[in-house]
């Protein structure tokens, strides 16, 4: 696959490359717009709205951002389109930014949740690689006992990264798998335990209950571990991501978000809406299929890349 060529490159250039396609349409249009409009009128703001909406930011959040921008422009009498563009960037960065740094204290346990097909298992494989490269000991738990061959998929990631996988038979109780994994992590003194879960639509009550149970098992059996509940969101997803984040947060207290599939043309703007409505920090982004295509989320880089200002 063509991604292989890029493997040697640094973090930033790969982030930029991953976001390149996403960025293109977006920035071209902003730049075009700024060139085109000398005067800052209603049409200008409407076009800004359109750009945000087509990036999946969502109508509500878009209106909020643009209305605020409009107000500020009026108050401070800004007449320069370029300045307004920077203001817009700042506003988005401010929404996405998070006060505290993401620090993993060991022993740590990660519960990775999300709807079907967002890339949970792949993200876990990448996380295993990340922490292993940091010199930590890692263990993975195949908590997706529902989807056919999900455990096999995780085991292949285990082979790739040299990390062991705790698994049981397909169809067994996922909470039992997690229980086993916690015992194993304890006895082996593992630094980071990564727990996979089956994809589930957030609107399915029984499946969310099952997840609640898994979460309870973690709290009960591994109270001394630093727990992170990561929600994996697909950048291709539209407004439903807000609903996903809301319900997963309610059920298992999501502590961070991983935004995957940012290497396509989808712009991932929905995280702006998710962050602004639910205030859950975005921790990682997935920008490709390779094992090291997982990056820490840096709002400035993300917005810069989105606006094409990274050099």
């Amino acid at each position: 696959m063509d991604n292989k060529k890029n493997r040697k490159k640094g973090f930033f250039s790969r982030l930029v490359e991953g976001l390149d396609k996403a960025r293109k349409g977006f920035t071209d249009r902003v730049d075009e717009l700024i060139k085109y409009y000398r005067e800052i009128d209603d049409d200008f703001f409407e076009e800004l709205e359109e750009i945000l909406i087509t990036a999946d930011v969502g109508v509500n959040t878009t209106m909020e951002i643009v209305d605020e921008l409009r107000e500020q422009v009026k108050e401070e009498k800004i007449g320069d389109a370029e300045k307004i563009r920077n203001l817009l960037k700042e506003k988005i960065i401010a929404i996405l930014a998070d006060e505290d740094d993401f620090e993993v204290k060991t022993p740590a346990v990660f519960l990775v949740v999300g709807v079907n097909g967002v890339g949970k298992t792949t993200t876990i494989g990448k996380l295993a690689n990340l922490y292993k490269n940091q010199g930590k000991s890692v263990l993975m738990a195949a908590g997706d006992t529902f989807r056919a061959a999900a455990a096999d998929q995780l085991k292949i990631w285990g082979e790739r990264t040299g990390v062991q996988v705790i698994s049981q038979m397909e169809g067994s109780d996922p909470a039992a798998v997690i229980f086993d994994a916690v015992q194993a992590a304890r006895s082996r003194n593992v630094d980071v335990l990564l727990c996979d879960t089956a994809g589930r639509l957030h609107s399915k009550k029984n499946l969310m209950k099952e997840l609640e149970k898994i979460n309870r098992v973690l709290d009960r059996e591994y109270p001394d571990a630093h727990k992170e509940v990561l929600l994996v969101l697909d950048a291709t997803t539209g407004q439903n991501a807000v609903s996903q984040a809301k319900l997963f947060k309610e059920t298992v207290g999501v502590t961070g978000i991983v935004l995957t599939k940012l290497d396509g043309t989808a712009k991932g703007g929905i995280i702006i809406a998710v962050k602004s409505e639910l205030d859950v920090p975005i921790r990682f982004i997935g920008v490709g299929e390779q094992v090291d295509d997982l990056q820490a989320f840096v709002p400035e880089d993300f917005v810069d890349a989105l606006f094409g200002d990274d050099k």
Partner: protein
Amino acid sequence: MAFEGLSSKLQSTFKKLTGKGKLSEKDVKNAMREVRLALLEADVNFKVVRELVKKISERAVGQEIMQSLTPGQQVIKIVNEELTALMGGTYSKINLAPTPPTVIMMVGLQGAGKTTTAGKLGGYFKKEGKSPLLVACDIYRPAAIRQLQVVGQQLSIPVFEMGKDDPVNIAKKAIAHAKDEDYDIVIIDTAGRLHINEELMDELKNIQNAVNPHEILLVVDAMTGQDAVNVAESFNEKLGIDGVVLTKLDGDTRGGAALSVKAVTGKPIKFAGMGEKLTDLEIFHPDRMASRILGMGDVLSLIEKAQANIDAEKAMELEKKLRSQQFTLDDFLEQLQQVKKMGPLSDIIGMIPGLNPSKLAGVDLDDRQIVRTEAIIQSMTKEERQNPNIINASRRKRIAKGSGTTIQDVNRLLKSFNEFRKMMKKMSGMEKSIRRGRFKFPF
């Protein structure tokens, strides 16, 4: 979410617009703003929304307003018709080859649900009495072949695989195998890929050229956002898809992607994935999708009911009866039952054009009241229903006993029914009152 406020926003838009003969440009513009927001919130692509809004506005301006609707509702009615027309009226079948095997190729982005859908589709054909073969051409994702095998096992459908061989070769061999073994449906599962990954898109093209599938199905996640248009366009341009399978529709997404995909490709959505089980694949019903995307089910059902219930003939009949004081408790009962069909009372009141729902906040709308009223009327004899004046004390006692209510309840109903009759007599015509939305329920 934004969506919750939509109904009330629409109400306020409508309120300003009641009681005009034709849709003016301003009526349409106001209503279209809400429609635009609703569609965008549902993830319908921005450009698709813009085109739709333009088209609908043109059609709507100058239209006669149905007597029973407000101008705003009339616009929504047109929107719904247009959406339904765009989605396609009836469901489309899979193209079967005149000489088997029929070759079906599944394509789509990662995580859309191709492998699961391939299995479900196999199960669907198996139930139809066909003998399907699943082909594992996803050689990239870890354990994808294994996943298809497990799915095949669960459904007792054989799976053809050649490990990590060249997918084009696997597909070719699979077809030959199917011919030898008399399989009549071959379903090829391919690897998920980004539509902008040319190398992998070329691989799909090569598989297509090698096996000449009768049907290429694009599998699309119903939760996809604005990007659905790019995805559908790319796959369609490269491969010329024949249909779409919309997955994960059992969630709470409004599924605007369906509309976007249909609008840019013109290809029908043939199936919908509706759940976790391998039998959860349904034939796609375009008409139902339209109202889901629009997310105005309440308004739409009111419009439908208004059309069904208050059709001209019936209204005339009712009016005649009312005027000549022939409106009986039987008619009243019938009206009640119509109302009940429309849903909970508080919802119906909320739907009535011109009524401000916020003003009703304190009013206690008790659905059991309708049930009680019904019971009372049903406990009357035919004669009593035709001529309530004959209901004396002992009859009241019997009716109360029969309906499990009190004599006071019976009295209240008779009193309000008489008032209703009087009120109706005073009204010069029912039509106007309906149009203005000043419907009054006699309870």
